[in-house]
């Protein structure tokens, strides 16, 4: 469907449908995924198409159904467990951190856990501090997990299949604010490597390194910067654990400057880690200090203007980079 616009939500839905069709071991479970069609309408009508055994509504117990998902994965199934928002995932953190992430290690390599957990994350729909946090850094800290962040329509459409193919647990962060966003999807269903970051825009003056909602913001900022004669490269991390250091290093070695953007609050964030890796690997390539634009150190507020103010906006990226490069 070249040239046609498609929503981020539709991309995710197509990916799930395709996975259900391709492998009968795949099923989806979570709160309201069936009859209600998903809290964000991602799985709408799938119950009718695939039946209740594969589109499974669960009780309101994250610890319970994530644990059941781990059990199903151990038993040979390929479950996609949907956790409604990242905030609720903490109720299942024991299952995720102490079981899913560790079983392969603790069984001496005998038990893989081929589980995929999808969760909605981030601000954008005035869902306040109960539903809107960006806690990717919390999960990216845990060894034993692969953490993916879906920052583009392309990844929304094509990341699920390789995630399901991974024999070990994968957590996919999707972004509520982008569900209705329409973009063109690239023509071909290219295979996506879920071990690699991706350069979304090549440039030579500065590397904007980001993920999730930061990707489109950075691309928007880069377009504006280009008008001012600044050629910014945009690196979409995509994989927050394990980090693809080589792509980061190659980009910074080329541009000699790094600007990190993320919605998560700044302290002990993904950008903290990326910054440290740049220092370790690229110190002598740096012509300016690494700078960051991150979320404010607050629980996400409810009012729209405060919600907007709590995370980086494209205009801020443009201003900060122009300031950084004013001498260049």
């Amino acid at each position, binding site marked *: 469907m070249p040239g046609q616009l498609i929503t981020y939500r539709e991309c995710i839905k197509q990916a799930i449908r395709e996975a259900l069709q391709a492998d009968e071991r795949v099923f989806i479970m979570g709160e309201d995924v069936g009859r209600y069609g998903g809290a964000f309408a991602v799985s709408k009508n799938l119950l009718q198409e695939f039946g209740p055994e594969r589109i499974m509504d669960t009780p309101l117990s994250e610890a319970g159904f994530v644990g059941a998902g781990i059990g199903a994965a151990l038993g040979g199934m390929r479950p996609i467990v949907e956790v409604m928002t990242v905030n609720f995932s903490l109720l299942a953190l024991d299952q995720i951190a102490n079981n899913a992430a560790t079983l392969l290690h603790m069984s001496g390599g005998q038990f893989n856990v081929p589980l995929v957990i999808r969760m909605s994350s981030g601000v954008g729909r005035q869902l306040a501090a109960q539903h809107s946090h960006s806690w990717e850094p919390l999960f990216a800290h845990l060894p034993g997990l692969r953490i993916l962040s879906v920052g583009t329509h392309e990844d929304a459409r094509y990341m699920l299949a390789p995630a399901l193919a991974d024999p070990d647990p994968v957590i996919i962060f999707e972004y509520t604010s982008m569900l209705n966003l329409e973009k063109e999807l690239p023509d071909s269903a290219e295979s996506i490597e879920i071990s690699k970051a991706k350069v979304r825009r090549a440039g030579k003056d500065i590397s904007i390194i980001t993920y999730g909602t930061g990707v489109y913001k950075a691309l928007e900022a880069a377009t504006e910067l280009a008008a001012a004669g600044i050629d910014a490269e945009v690196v979409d991390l995509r994989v927050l654990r394990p980090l693809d250091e080589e792509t980061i290093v190659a980009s910074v070695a080329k541009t*000699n400057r790094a600007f990190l953007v993320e919605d998560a609050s700044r302290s002990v964030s993904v950008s903290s880690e990326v910054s440290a890796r740049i220092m370790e690997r690229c*110190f*002598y*390539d*740096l*012509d300016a200090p690494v700078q960051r634009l991150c979320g404010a150190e607050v629980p996400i507020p409810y009012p729209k203007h405060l919600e907007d103010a709590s995370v980086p906006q494209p205009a801020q990226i443009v201003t900060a980079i122009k300031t950084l490069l004013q*001498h*260049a």
Partner: protein
Amino acid sequence: MLEYKMPSLGADMASGSLREWRVKPGDRIKKGDIIAEIETQKGIIEIEVFEDGVIGELLVKVDELVPVGTSMATILTEEEAAGKRPAPAEAPREEKPAEAPAPAGSTTETLPHHIRASPLARRIAEEKGIDIATIQGTGPEGAILREDVEHAIAAQAAPAAGKAAVEHAAVPEEVTPEKPAPPVAEEKPIPAAATAQSIRMAVAAAMSKSNREVPHYYLETKIDMSKALAWLADTNGQRPVKERLLPAVLLIKAVAKALNDVPALNAWWENGLQLKESIHIGYVVALRTGGIMVPAIHDTDTKSVEELMLALNDLIPRARALRLRSSELADSTITVTSLGEGGVETVYGVIYPPQVALVGFGGITEQPWSENGMLTVRPVLTATLAADHRASDGSTGSRFLTAIKNYLQQPEKL
């Protein structure tokens, strides 16, 4: 007016601490005079001046630790000094800096620390051999950025490159802005006391730099020492034991004469090859506590073997006592190491930068030797050359080793 700066006594020296001024303002000095004692990693060093003149101001206080390149004193010409005489009241007693401007204040511009530069700018400047202290920064708070270095490179390409290289020879080659600034307050500086450990670290720094940066090549040859030893036995037989000559002086002299024939190895590599006119052989003295000192035997080629023996008698004990003069530490144009007494036959040395060659002598041992189709036993010495392949090639090195070998066959002419 000239500024006398903390000299760099080797690639490994970053700073020195003033122990004593041997001069005071108004003193007349001649080239080669010792004006101060400084304490470095390699012991207490007497430092010498390189110009005639009159001491103007002393800018560094006793016990002050200052980086290489810091102005320590001003040296006036006779005319300048005469001009200054009529108003002696303005500088009553320089040694008591009660009202005199603080040294740090008057020298901030020449201090190499506190340079704000991006890591990339520093790296490019170092790769291109540009002193970053000479570059004007245009970045935030005056920081030097890549662009500034690139402009400086473009600007420097215009004037004669040779001039820049000569300037560099006199100025410390390594800017060390990472070093902490000398304390301006009353804080007691830590003197760079020479200990077995500090000497170890100095050797470590120089050798690491060498192995990292210098592409070494090695050549080796065996030398029949029977004529040299016979000549030594003969000449020593006619001397009191006090004037006895050791084989080392013959080796050193042979190297010096060979350098006259092959001057390409008597050089420094600093922003390109710089041939040295005088031959100052650095002779490696091992310290019993570990580490080495390499004092220069000045104008080795012009000294007779007797004079060389006297020079060793003077230098070796002072090297062991860590009491060398600055020129002895800084002037060597090539290094000779003689490790044979420990019993080893062959020495593969590491060049002491910025020199471009090192000659290693093993022990003299009796070995089967064939000559003119006859097999015999001779005292044999293995000589090796470690040379910098940026500065010379194997054919040059080969001519040099062969020259040493030939000179040692005519010991009476050395």
